[in-house]
C-alpha cells in the first residue's frame, strides 16, 4: 500500500452507488499516517463514464471503491493507473471502517463473495477476485479517530434505491 493514498468512494446519497455509472457524488478521503480524513467531494451532473474517469484522474485519486462496474470502464481506470476495488456495497461509514481494517472483501456484493465449489454456478464471475486493497491490521498505522470523529461522516440512513 502507498504511504499516502487518495481514496474515492462513488456514492449515491450516504451509501456506495450500486452502479458506478449511477453515482451522483464522488467522496474523497486522504489516507496517510494519521488515518483516513475527508478530502472533499465532487458532484456529478454528467453520467458519461469518460467524464467520470477524467474527473477521478484530475483529482489525483489513487484508489476507487465503487459498486458494480462494467469491464470497459474498469479497464479504462486501471489503464490510467487507478487501483480499482469494485463490487463493494454499504454505507460510507461501513466502507471506510472496512477499508481501514483491510477487510473490504466483507462488503462484497452478492454474487461476488469468495468462490467455493462449483465454478460454473452463477456468481463466480470476475468480481470475485478481490484485490485486497485497504489497510491491513497490524501495519502499525493508528486508527484515525481524530479525523473520523469530525462529524463529517454520517451514519447509514435508509438510503433509497
Amino acid at each position, binding site marked *: 500500500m502507498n504511504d499516502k493514498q487518495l481514496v474515492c468512494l462513488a456514492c449515491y446519497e450516504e451509501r456506495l452507488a450500486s452502479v458506478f*455509472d449511477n453515482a451522483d457524488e464522488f467522496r474523497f478521503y486522504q489516507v496517510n499516517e494519521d488515518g483516513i480524513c475527508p478530502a472533499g467531494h465532487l458532484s456529478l451532473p454528467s453520467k*458519461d*463514464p*469518460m467524464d467520470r474517469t477524467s474527473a477521478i484522474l484530475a483529482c489525483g485519486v489513487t484508489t476507487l471503491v465503487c459498486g458494480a462496474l*462494467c469491464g470497459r470502464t474498469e479497464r479504462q481506470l486501471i489503464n490510467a493507473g487507478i487501483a480499482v476495488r469494485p463490487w463493494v456495497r454499504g454505507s460510507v461509514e461501513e466502507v471506510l471502517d472496512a477499508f481501514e481494517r483491510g477487510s473490504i472483501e466483507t462488503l462484497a456484493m*452478492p454474487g461476488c463473495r469468495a468462490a467455493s465449489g462449483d465454478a460454473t454456478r*452463477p456468481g463466480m464471475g470476475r*468480481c470475485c477476485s478481490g484485490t485486497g486493497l485497504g489497510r491491513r491490521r497490524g501495519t502499525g498505522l493508528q486508527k484515525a479517530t481524530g479525523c473520523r470523529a469530525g462529524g463529517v461522516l454520517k451514519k447509514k440512513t435508509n438510503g*433509497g434505491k
Partner: protein
Amino acid sequence: MREFWAYAAPMSFPKELPFEDVLASIADGVFTVDTDWNITYFNESAERITGIPAQEALGQKCWDVFHSSLCDGSCALRECIGSSGVISGKSIFIVRPDGHKVPVSISAAPLRNADGEIVGGVETFRDLTELQLMRRKVEDQYGFEDIVGHSEALDKIFRILPQVSRSEATVLLLGESGTGKELFARAVHNLSGRREGPFVAVNCGALPDTLLESELFGYKAGAFTDAKGDKPGRFELARGGTIFLDEIGDLPAKLQVKLLRVLQEKIYEPLGGVKPVPCDARIVAATNRDLETLVAEGAFRQDLYYRLNVVTLRLPPLRDRREDIPLLVNHFIREYNAVQDKDVQGVSEDVMALLLRHDFPGNVRELENILEFSFILCSSGFIQLEHLPDSIRPSQAVDSMTDGQGGTLEEIKCRAVLRALERNEGRKMATCRELGISKDTLRRMLQRCAETGAE
C-alpha cells in the same frame, strides 16, 4: 417464498401444478421485494440473467443484486409502488458480476395482500441480448451502399439503382428535404463505372447567382477584375467522375441555359473563355421542389426539365417508410457510439413508440438530429424520453393525437385507442404494448367506444 404466494393475486390454479414451479420455469427473470426493498423471491431465470445465485440474492437489498441503470434514484419498483401503477416494457441495462452490461426489458408492479395493502413489489425482466444480436444481423442485410432501409418504397429504388448507375444517363432525384438525396447520388456514383473518379457536390441554392456561374464553369485569367489566373470550375473538377447538382430548382435562368448546353452538347465555356471545353462528368441533379409546377410557372425551362428527367428517382419521405425507423435509429446509434466513443445500447421502447408515431417533417435528417441531441444527454444505457428534445416530447404527441378536435376525455381516449389499433394494423397485443395497457383494458375501452359511438 411462502409470503410471495400470500401476496399473489387469487387465481384458479391447478393444484397439481405448483405456482413456484411455473415461475421457476419461465424464461423471464422474476424477483419480489418487501417494503424494505429486501429480495423475497428470485427465480432461476433471474439467477441466469443476473449471474447471481438465489441463495445469495434472497434477503439482500435489490439494488445490491440487480445493479441496473435505474437503481440509485430512478427505481422502477419505487415508482410503481409510489403511484400504485404498473411499469411495462422499460428498456434498461444491468451490470453482471462478470463486468458485462446486459440489456433488459423490465416490468414492475406493486404487490398487495388480501386487504389490498401494498406489501412489496414484483419486477420481471427479459434478457434482450439475443434479440439485439438478431436485430443487428437483420440490419446488416437491409441496406444498400450507405442507405439504410428495407421498406417497399426503398426496395423498388434499390432494385433499379445498379442498372441506373451503370448507365451514363442523367439522374434526377426528387424528394423532400432530409430524405438523403446526396446519399443516393453518392450511391449512383459508387455503383457506376466512374467510381474511381471524383464525386463533386454543388448546392445550387447556396451560392449567389454570379458566384455560382464561376463556381460551376470556372473562369479564365482576365475574365474580370482580379481574375489573375485560370480557375477550374466544378465541372472540370468532376472530370471522369460525377457532379451532383443539389437544389437544381433554384438555378437562375441564365445558368439554366448554360447547363442545358452541357446536357445537350457535353460542352461549356468558362467565364472569359473563347473556346468550348468538353464536359466529362456525369450529372446527377436533385431538388425538393416540384419542377413540373416551376415549369408551368415559367420559373424553370421546360427543355432543361426534360433533359434532366431521363431517369427520375422519387425518394420517399420517412413518414411513408416508418418501418425503416428502427433500422435508422440503430444505424445512427452505432455511428455515434463509434464517433463519440459512447456505449448507448439503443432507445427505450417508449422512445421507439414515440419515434414511430412522429411525422418527421425533416425526414431522416430530423431523426439524426434528434439522436445527436439525445447523445449529449445520454452516454450509456438506453435513450429515454427525458433525453429527447422538447419538440418531440410526449406532451406534443398527445396534442397531435387529439388533432385539436377536443371532446370529452372519453372521446379523446377512444380516438387514441382506435388510432393505435390502426397503426398496428388491428393487432391487439401490439396496440396494448404501444399504449402500455392490458388486453382486458383494451377490450373494455373498445367496448365503451362502440357503445358511445366515439371515433
